[in-house]
């Protein structure tokens, strides 16, 4: 979502009228004052404090003592830290890769098959079903799923038993080998609606003549999907991938409610790890270092995503004009 700045800013620069007299133009800056002050107090100062604290040894009381890069050096040897970032990669798969892939296929199928033959009302209802988990507070989604996945009389185990697959019953969230995959499954369910809705909106601007031409040439549905749909909505794909990957790196509520990072750290993620370090172990300096690393990774990822999207959109415009 946050991805079109460069472009729009450039577009504005291009279409600029001859410079109006200096003074009136600058007085617009006054409208930025409340926003600037608020951001200074709530975002900039806390962020700088957090970064500063990451170079100190601090328990949250008394004054922090400078320790240079000691926290970061400790992080490098901390297996818990590496594990949490490894789990982040799994979360990126569950919240970005899988929902994007599934979302593309589902959106195209909804658009092509259902939209054209069963009417837009059917599409709207189906889309609403897929989007529903997205409006649910993550804490509530966590409650729903931790009960469904509960070992004793949880619905999933009860269902397996009812259909004669009793031997498949598991402690889905309590088994260290399974817990991460269970959480991933829940996250796919939570996340799927977002790419789906974005892609369905994107498909609407694809020129139908492209499909008709391909159909006349005898291309089947999959070939048309692969050669027309995918390239046409590439900008949306980059937006969704970037946005969802960032959400995956930030995931906190689901882990807190479903597993609290357990069992035995099997589902620990950086944001939960830093939260626990801040408020349970009260090693504030160390927690700040974890969150600083997370921030750097997220900002780097945003810049890459921004670049890819800009390039895709420019390429597309080049084709059109």
């Amino acid at each position, binding site marked *: *979502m*946050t991805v*079109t*700045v460069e472009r729009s*800013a450039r577009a*504005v620069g291009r279409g600029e*009228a001859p410079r109006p007299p200096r003074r009136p*133009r*600058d007085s*617009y*800056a006054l*409208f*930025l004052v*409340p926003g600037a002050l*608020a*951001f200074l107090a*709530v*975002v900039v100062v*806390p*962020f700088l404090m957090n*970064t500063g604290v990451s170079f100190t040894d601090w328990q*949250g009381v008394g004054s922090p003592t400078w320790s240079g890069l000691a926290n970061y050096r400790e992080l490098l040897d901390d297996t818990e830290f590496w594990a949490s970032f490894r789990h982040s990669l799994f979360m990126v798969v569950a919240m970005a890769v899988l929902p994007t892939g599934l979302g593309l296929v*589902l959106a195209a199928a909804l658009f*092509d*098959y259902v939209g*054209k033959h069963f009417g837009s009302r059917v599409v709207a209802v*189906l889309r609403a079903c*897929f*989007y*529903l988990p997205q409006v649910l*507070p993550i804490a*509530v989604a*966590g*409650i*729903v799923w*931790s009960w469904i996945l509960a070992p004793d*009389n*949880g*619905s999933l185990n009860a269902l397996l038993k009812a259909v004669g697959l009793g031997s498949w019953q598991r402690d889905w969230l309590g088994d260290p080998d399974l817990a991460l995959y269970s959480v991933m499954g829940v996250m796919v369910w939570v996340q799927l*609606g*977002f790419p789906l*809705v*974005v892609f369905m*909106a*994107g498909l609407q601007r694809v020129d139908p003549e492209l499909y008709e031409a391909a159909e006349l040439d005898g291309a089947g549905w999959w070939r048309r999907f692969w050669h027309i749909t995918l390239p046409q909505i590439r900008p949306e794909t980059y937006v969704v991938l970037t946005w969802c990957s960032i959400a995956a*790196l*930030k995931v906190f*509520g689901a882990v*807190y*409610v479903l597993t*609290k990072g357990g069992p035995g750290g099997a589902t620990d993620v950086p*944001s939960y790890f*830093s*939260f626990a370090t801040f*408020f349970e172990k009260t090693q504030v300096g160390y927690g700040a270092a974890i*969150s600083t690393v*997370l*921030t750097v990774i*997220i*900002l780097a990822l945003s810049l890459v995503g921004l670049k890819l999207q800009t390039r895709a959109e420019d390429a597309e415009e080049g084709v059109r004009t």
Partner: protein
Amino acid sequence: MTALRRYPVLAALCLAALFMVVPFVVVALNAVKSPTEYSQNGPLSLPDGLYLDGLKDFWERVDYSQKLVNSVLISGCVAVGAAVLSVLNAYAIGIGRIKGRTWVLAFFVLANMLPQEALVYPVYYLSKQAGLYDTRLSVIIVFTVIQAAFGTYLLSSVLGRFPREIIEAARIDGASRWQVLWRIVVPVSRPTIGVLLVFFFIWTWNEFLLPLVMLISNDNQTVSVALGVLQGQRLMDATMTNAAALLGVLPALVFFLVFQRTLTRGIAVGAVK
């Protein structure tokens, strides 16, 4: 495309959609079962009758009305506050085209990307210093600013394409910048601002980490935090869990039905200008 293939595809899509909704249905069914019924028949049976005591018990035990009031108050104030802040920022950037706007906008985008983990401890510490810790006001202030980062970005790009002639005409008629903003720009951009209000409200309603840290007393907690904390303590039995889940799902369902159009349209606007 033959009808032969059309129906299997429709069936598969319906099945997938059903899978998305089933958890809600199962929760609703089990929330109206009595504990004995639940332990005898398990989670998959249909309820014998409507047993509402579980819901009522849960409502009273966690003082759910208070949680709803807190959530509505916080989300409502944030939605309005963040929308006002976004409009002011975007007016300067999109219409005023102030110097260095690219950098200003880039700053807001980065602020929007920032993980809350990188802000949470200083915010917690500073609010304690300022005597705002464990108040709803502290959460309102923080989220007003955080949500405004996204609003500024979105509105700036919308206002960047605002027809200049209208503004020029109003200026010639002697309207001040302030009047142009409130009498012309805001009314014309009402659809986008409406989308922002809905999004801010729902996003704030769903927020978890910062409210969890900032709101520790029962009287101040939001729905999300109260339910999340209860679940985290692992003290709820099956019936209570279902009551909690159903009561948590219901407000979201109401927003969803009321704002469905705005939501789906808004996501598209947000993602690709």
